[in-house]
């Protein structure tokens, strides 16, 4: 902490703000100090911290003081942190909050999140070292580089060397990961090419390929995450997996549907099902593909798509005619209703309420009054009273 200097926090000419984050606490090594809540700013040249409550209290440190940085993931009761290892303070440094410090590193604790983005930006600045190309008028710390003949305490040299090794190790791991990723992608690309040629064969010789083989091929595509418009046209996107899923859904959704008046939007279903599963969640596409098979499998639910594009699941026993008649009754009783009012009365979501009223309008039961105040529906007296 003795590397920090008091500053007015104003940026110099040539110094630009990169990112800032509220809710940051500074630790001197592992120790908590009085700088517990402030805004942290990263510029092209410095890290600046200003106290939330006392804006006069503002400290800064040049980026050239940083040896290297690490991330510390959040834990139970602990925020995510960035650990910053520093060069020793230079002798001609401006006055700061601490004259001396036990540790040669500090920690920044992100109590209001934002650690990832901040770390990314700080790493970028450390890589580009823009402060070297853009001198600022303020007295900056002398860049502590690999200057031979510099007098250092033995302990610090040892620590720095170990940290340097660790950093190289981490770098190596990351670059190994990227290398492995690239190799994997090359193989994946081969799979994509292969699938394309097979799909074309299927298209050309419709008779020669058996139904079984096509189904198997489609499940390969599913496993690889390859979309093939050719097979989708002729055979749909569903696979055995989706058929099983459809049957499962019929079981899971029966009761929730009954509780909600026999109809639910696909978004509601997605949330309900995935929250219940906890793991091995369904992708939105999995859900849609499974629902498309409900009717064909003669299950007690079906997928319905409204004109607006909204997709719902409803019970087969759900009779929209009855629903519309009762909607008309409800609207007549109240004189007129908006989607929100209707939704509240009946106990359904606003989205579905709106769809029902729109459908009633389409059938000629209701009339709309469209104004800036919103969309309101009235019984269609043009039809009933002549």
């Amino acid at each position, binding site marked *: 902490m003795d590397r920090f200097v008091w500053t007015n926090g104003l940026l110099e000419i040539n110094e630009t703000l990169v990112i800032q984050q509220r809710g940051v606490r500074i630790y001197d090594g592992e120790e908590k100090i009085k700088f517990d809540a402030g805004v942290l700013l990263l510029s092209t040249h410095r890290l600046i911290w200003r106290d939330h409550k006392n804006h006069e209290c503002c400290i800064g440190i040049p980026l050239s003081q940083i040896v290297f940085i690490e991330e510390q*993931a*959040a*834990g*139970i*009761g*602990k925020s995510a942190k960035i650990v910053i290892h520093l060069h020793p303070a230079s002798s001609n440094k401006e006055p700061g909050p601490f004259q001396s410090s036990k540790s040669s590193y500090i920690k920044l604790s992100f109590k209001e*999140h934002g*650690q*990832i*983005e901040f770390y*990314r930006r700080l790493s970028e600045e450390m890589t580009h070292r823009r402060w070297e190309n853009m001198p600022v008028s303020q007295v900056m710390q002398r860049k502590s580089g690999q200057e031979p003949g510099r007098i250092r305490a033995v302990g610090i040299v040892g620590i720095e060397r170990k940290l340097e090794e660790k950093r190289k190790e981490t770098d190596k791991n990351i670059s190994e*990961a*990227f290398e*492995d*990723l*690239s190799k*994997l*992608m090359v*193989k*994946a690309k081969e*799979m*994509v090419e*292969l699938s394309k040629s*097979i799909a074309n064969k299927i298209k050309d010789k419709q008779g020669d390929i058996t139904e079984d083989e096509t189904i*198997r*091929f489609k499940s*390969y595509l*599913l*496993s*690889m*995450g*390859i*979309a093939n418009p050719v097979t989708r046209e002729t055979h749909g996107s569903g696979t055995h*997996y989706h058929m099983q899923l459809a049957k499962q859904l019929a079981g899971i959704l029966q009761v929730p549907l009954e509780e*909600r008046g026999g109809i639910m*939007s*696909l*978004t*509601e279903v*997605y*949330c309900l099902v*995935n*929250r219940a599963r906890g793991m*091995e*969640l369904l*992708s*939105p*596409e*999995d859900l*849609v593909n499974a629902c498309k098979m409900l009717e064909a499998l003669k299950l007690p639910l079906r997928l319905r*798509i409204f004109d607006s*594009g*909204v*997709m719902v699941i409803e019970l087969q026993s759900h009779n929209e005619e009855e629903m519309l008649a009762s909607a008309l009754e409800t609207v007549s009783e109240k004189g007129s209703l908006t989607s929100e009012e209707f939704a509240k009365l009946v106990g*359904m*979501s606003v989205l579905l309420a709106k769809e029902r009223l729109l459908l009633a309008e389409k059938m000629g039961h209701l009339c709309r009054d*469209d104004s*800036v105040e*919103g*969309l309101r529906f009235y019984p269609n007296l043009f039809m009933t009273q002549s």
Partner: protein
Amino acid sequence: MSKQLDMFKTNLEEFASKHKQEIRKNPQFRLQFQDMCATIGVDPLASGKGFWSEMLGVGDFYYELGVQIIEVCLALKHRNGGLITLEELHQQVLKGRGKFAQDVSQDDLIRAIKKLKALGTGFSIIPVGGTYLVQSVPAELNMDHTVVLQLAEKNGYVTVSEIKASLKWETERARQVLEHLLKEGLAWLDLQAPGEAHYWLPALFTDLYSQEITAEEAREALP
């Protein structure tokens, strides 16, 4: 082809055993991974049953994020009409996930939202200024509406004169767009503003209420 597939599966398993953690914890790496998949024509998020999802666990990460995004949007819909900035969505989602969960980047959110489009209920992403607005209701927004939203981004509100001056439209065109935004619940009318009426966009009020909603409220908002 099944032989090739098995071989690929083995390669993927090997990769997963070495780098699965990397994908879970490192958004940069995730981003690279997604970009590379897109380049070769593979969608690792298409199905929970896909290899990518099963072995690398990418699926669960994004599908759960999808659920959290839906919940946040629903909880705030009564205030902003179904339009929210990516920043605010990011903050709310992070809050809902709590301190133990992995961090998510804005890129992660965008990918999750793109997947949600398959559910048919109007999720879309609108570029505005330097950032994005996320729309979670199927309101019809055409180019005119989007341009006005972008104009409003500066101050959080917009006026008819401002629209006429910046976009060079006639009064009627400006009025129609503003009325549509009012009707859809995306804009609020302020008749007490000095000068002429101000049309405020709650979606663009970031600092004012980003602290208010709790995870509990977000979950309860789902009917």
